[in-house]
C-alpha cells in the first residue's frame, strides 16, 4: 500500500510445474526448508527427500533447483552421481548385497547369484511383489563376518543362501513398511 506505482502486477508462477503429488511436494519443500541454511546442504536435502519418499522423484529435481537457486543440471548431476539416490520408486525394503573383496573371499559371488535368482530380479530391480529392491554395495564394514547384507539399515553377517531366504521371508509376507 506504500507503493504508489500504478503499474499492474502480473502474478508470475515461478515455481516449476510438476507431477508431484501434494504429499510429495510437501516433503520436498520441507526438506528444502530444513536444509536451506546448511552450507553445502544439497546432500542432506536429498537424503531427507529419499528418507521421506523412498526415492528422489525426477519431478522433484526442478523444484529443489528452484528452491536452492541452482540449475536443474546441477541438481540432476548430484542425484545421478551418487549410487545411493534412486529416482525410481523402490520396493518396501531395500536390500544391499556386498560385492567387495572381503565378502567375495567368503562366498559373496554365490550369494549374489542366489539373491538375484530367488528374487527373480537383477541389481536395481524390485521383486514382483513390490517387497524388495536389490542393490549392490561395496563394503559394509563387516569384512570378517561376510557375506554381508544391509536390510534397510540393519546389518547382517555370515549370510548363507539359506539365511538369505530366512531373512527375506518376513519382508515378503508383511505389509507396508512403516
Amino acid at each position, binding site marked *: 500500500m506504500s507503493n504508489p506505482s500504478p503499474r499492474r502486477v502480473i502474478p508470475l508462477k515461478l515455481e516449476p510445474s510438476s507431477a508431484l503429488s501434494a504429499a510429495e511436494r510437501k516433503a520436498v519443500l520441507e526438506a528444502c526448508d530444513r536444509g536451506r541454511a546448511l*552450507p*553445502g*546442504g*544439497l*546432500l*542432506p536435502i*536429498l*537424503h531427507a527427500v529419499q528418507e521421506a519418499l523412498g526415492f528422489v522423484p525426477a519431478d522433484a529435481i526442478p523444484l529443489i533447483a528452484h528452491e536452492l537457486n541452482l540449475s536443474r543440471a*546441477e541438481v540432476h*548431476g*548430484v542425484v545421478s*552421481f*551418487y*549410487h*545411493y*539416490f534412486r529416482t525410481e520408486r523402490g520396493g518396501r525394503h531395500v536390500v*544391499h548385497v556386498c560385492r*567387495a*573383496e*572381503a*565378502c*567375495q*573371499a*567368503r562366498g559373496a559371488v554365490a550369494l549374489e547369484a542366489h539373491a538375484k535368482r530367488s528374487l527373480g530380479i537383477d541389481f536395481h530391480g524390485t521383486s514382483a511383489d513390490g517387497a524388495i529392491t536389490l542393490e549392490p*554395495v*561395496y*563394503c*559394509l*564394514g*563387516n*569384512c*570378517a*563376518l*561376510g557375506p*554381508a547384507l*544391509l536390510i534397510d*539399515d*540393519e*546389518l*547382517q*553377517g*555370515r549370510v548363507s543362501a539359506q539365511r538369505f531366504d530366512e531373512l527375506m521371508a518376513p519382508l515378503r509376507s508383511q505389509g507396508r513398511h512403516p
Partner: protein
Amino acid sequence: MSATRIFVPLDAAARSVGADATARAIAEEARRRKLDIEVVRNGSRGMLWLEPMVEVEVGGARHAYGPVHPSSVPSLFDAAFHTAAADGAKRHALAHGPTEEIAYLKRQQRLTFARVGITDPRSVADYVAHGGYRGLKAALAMQPGAIVDSVTASGLRGRGGAAFPAGIKWKTVLGAPGSQKYVVCNADEGDSGTFSDRMLMEGDPFVLIEGMTIAALATGADRGYIYLRFEYPDAKRALEAAIAAARAAHYLGENIQGSGRRFELEVRMGAGAYICGEETSLLESLEGKRGQVRFKPPLPAIAGLFGKPTVINNVITFASVPIILDRGADFYKNFGMGRSRGTLPMQLAGNVKHGGLVEVAFGMTLRELIYDFGGGSDSGRPVRAVQVGGPLGAYLPESQFDTPLDYEAFANIKGMLGHGGVVLFDDTVDMAAQARYAMEFCAIESCGKCTPCRIGSVRGVEVIDRLRAGENAAAQEVLLRDLCETMLYGSLCAMGGLTPYPVLSALNHFPEDFVKPKSARASA
C-alpha cells in the same frame, strides 16, 4: 550390592550376528531368575569370530563368553556365569577366561583402541573415567603451535592410506591466513576389508570428537564435519548421540570447558561413492556437489572446504591424537619402526579363521598377523593370496608374507599398507577374476574426471576378458600392462592410479590363473 554388569556389544558387526537377541535373552533370563543384573551395550573388543561376545564383570575383571546365542543363555546362567568364578562357569564350552588374558588381545598394543569394548560409548562420564579428555585438557593449556609440534614430533602419519605426516598438514593450516578454517574427518571408510573406523566410531566416538577438537584448537578452526558413509547407520547413531552428549557436557559448543574456545561439530552423510574417500572429492561432496576429484594444488590445507584452510584427516588419525597430547609425543613415537611410528589398527578380514581388529606397533610381519593372530583361513584350506590396503592394494603371494607392517616396506614391494585392511583368500580363488573385479570396481566408482581412470578401467575389463578367453593372449597381456602404465602415471588421483596394483600383482604373482578359464584348467 550393586548389580552385576554384563556387557553385550552394540557394535554393528556383533549385531549382524545376533547381539541384540542375546542382550534381550540375558536380560529376560536374569529377570526370570530374579538376579540383579545390568546389561551394558559396549563396543566390540574386535575378536569378531567370538561375536556376540558377552563379558561378565566380577571384581573389576571381565570374563569372556562367546559366541553367545540366545539358546545358550540358560545354560550359562545354570553354570552361574554371572559369578564367573564358579567352576561350572570356567568349564562352560563358551568360556574364554578373563578377557584381558586372551592371547589375541594380550599381544596387542592398544593405544587408539584403548577404550573400545571397555566403555559405554554413549557415556561421557565413562569416557572421562577411563582417561578420556586428558589430551584436550593438555591442549587447552598449550599454544596452537605447540600442539602442532607435539603431533609432528609423534611421527603420526595419516591413517587413511596416504600416510602423509599429520603434523605437517596441521602446520600448513595453522600458518594459512583466514578467519574461517575447518576440521573435516574422513569417515568414508570404503576400502573392502577395513572396519577400524566403524568400530572406533561405534565403540568410542568421544575419542574421535576429542581428536577433532584438539585439531581445531591447533589450527584455529571453529567448525568441523564428520563425513560418514551411508553404509554405516550404526556409526551415525553413535556419533550423533556422542556429539549431543559432548555438547551437553561442554566439550563441544561455544565455550569448551570454560576456555572461551568454540568448536561446532556435525555429521554429514555420504551417498554411496567410493571416490568420496579421496579428500578433495570428499570436500566437493560436503559442499553439496558431485564428488569429483579436484586438481592439486591448491592443497586442502590452503584452500579446502568452501575454499577455506581445512584440516582433513581420517578417523584413526584424529583418534590417535588425544593419547599423543596426554602421554606425550615420545610415548607414541617409541612404538613402531623406521618412519612408521606408533601403532596401526590392522583389520583381519575375508576368509580368515580369527577375523577382527589387531592394533599393533608397526614392524610385525604380515605372516605373524595372518597366522599368529588370524589362525589362517576359515575354510582350513591354504592361504593363497592376501590383499592388503583395500581394493587398490596389491595381492600378495605367500613368498611376500614376511614383509613387515611398515609403509615403506610395503611400498618397496609395490604394495601399500593403506588403511590396514588385510583380506585373506584360500586356494579356491581365481586371481584373474580378482584382477577383472579390480578394473570393474574402478569403472563403477570412477568419478569420471580423468580419462585414464574413466575409460582405462572399462577397457581393462575388456582386455582381461579377452586374455582369460585366450584370444591372442600374449598381445592382450602386453596391452594390459601398457594400459596399467597409462593409468598408473596418467590418473588424477589414487583411484585410477592404484587400480593397476591389484591387477598387476595378480598377473605377476599368479600368471597361471590368466592362462585360460579356471574351469577349463581344472577339468584338464
